[in-house]
């Protein structure tokens, strides 16, 4: 789980005018996210987003998703998967090389954290800070289907809290159909339907169905 990594990074870089804000995309609220947060003992703002509203606002469709914001409140990197990678995908296959996965994970993690440190030290001069035109290019255009997907997702969350499971599942299905690329909608809905389903056979079948396409698309070498 990433939370302890972000907390350590926060402690390291806070003296440089830097802060981490973590957002748990968790419709189950504190009951689901709370134990992980308690374990990480965050001194940074560690927030819970039951509606996935920040994901809607920032165009995130999976976790982890990372956005860099500079001192003026300008986005300098809109959406990266950080040190998440494709390394996990064969995990359920026989003969999977777990050592190779750990090596790749370490490599991506060191690379990503080095990039954050470079930006914290050098700001705009960092090669990882993108110019505004490139940031705008990477931000998804407003899309009526995405707006409806987000509204259906909120409706599903509301109905779920009310204990109306069947209508909640119908609303989540609409959200997922309108934004099929959102693993966050899909896996959250599975998890509310049945704890553990977000990482169950349906998930692995969906990952397999990606074929050559990435689970964590990247736009450059970070």
């Amino acid at each position, binding site marked *: 789980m990433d939370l302890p990594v972000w907390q350590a990074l926060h402690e390291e870089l806070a003296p440089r005018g830097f802060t981490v804000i973590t957002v748990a995309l968790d419709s189950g609220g504190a009951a689901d996210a709370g134990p992980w947060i308690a374990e990480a003992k965050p001194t940074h703002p560690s927030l819970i987003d039951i509606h996935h509203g920040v994901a809607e606002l920032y165009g995130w469709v999976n976790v982890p998703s990372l956005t860099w914001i500079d001192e003026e409140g300008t986005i300098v990197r809109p959406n990266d998967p950080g040190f998440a990678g494709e390394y996990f995908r064969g995990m359920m296959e026989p003969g999977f090389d777990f050592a190779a996965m750990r090596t790749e994970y370490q490599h991506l993690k060191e690379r990503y954290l080095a990039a954050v440190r470079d930006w914290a030290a050098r700001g705009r001069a960092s090669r990882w800070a993108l110019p505004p035109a490139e940031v705008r290019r990477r931000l998804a255009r407003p899309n009526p289907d995405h707006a409806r997907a987000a509204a259906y997702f909120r409706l599903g969350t*509301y109905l779920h809290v009310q204990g109306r499971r069947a209508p909640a599942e119908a609303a989540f299905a609409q959200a997922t159909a309108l934004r099929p690329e959102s693993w966050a909608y899909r896996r959250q809905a599975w998890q509310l339907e049945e704890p553990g389903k977000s990482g169950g056979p349906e998930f692995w079948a969906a990952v397999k169905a990606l074929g050559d396409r990435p689970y964590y698309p990247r736009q450059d070498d970070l």
Partner: protein
Amino acid sequence: MTNVTIVDERTVASVDAELCGEELWISAPELARATGWERKPAGICRGAVCVPIPPLRESEFVRPDGSVNVVALARHRGQAVVHDDTATVWMFGNSDEGRQSMLGSAAAPDFTLPDVSGHLHSLSEVCGKKVLLAAWASW
């Protein structure tokens, strides 16, 4: 009249409404009581926010008896509106103002969320610092 629940980012309200296809008409007093929106000379307003009614399109938004089509109002503000199968719960999505300004200037849109104890925090509170905004999930 049908009793429906309308939900947006600020309110959950039970209201008596007239359901007409995908439109939802609510009488002026009922609307003000339940949501705080009311008709003013500047348009349809809640607090400091006023939505001017486009000239010549008044009948889409307001009837002569003062009732308001809240779905038309939301659409006009760039909000998506969806409802459950029985049309008893209506969800009004966020207006797309934050996202629009982000696309123009790359300005990070503000948001407010609770921490695990329920205390609210906003992005704007850390203005002047570099921020790594990180999404994760328990699932």
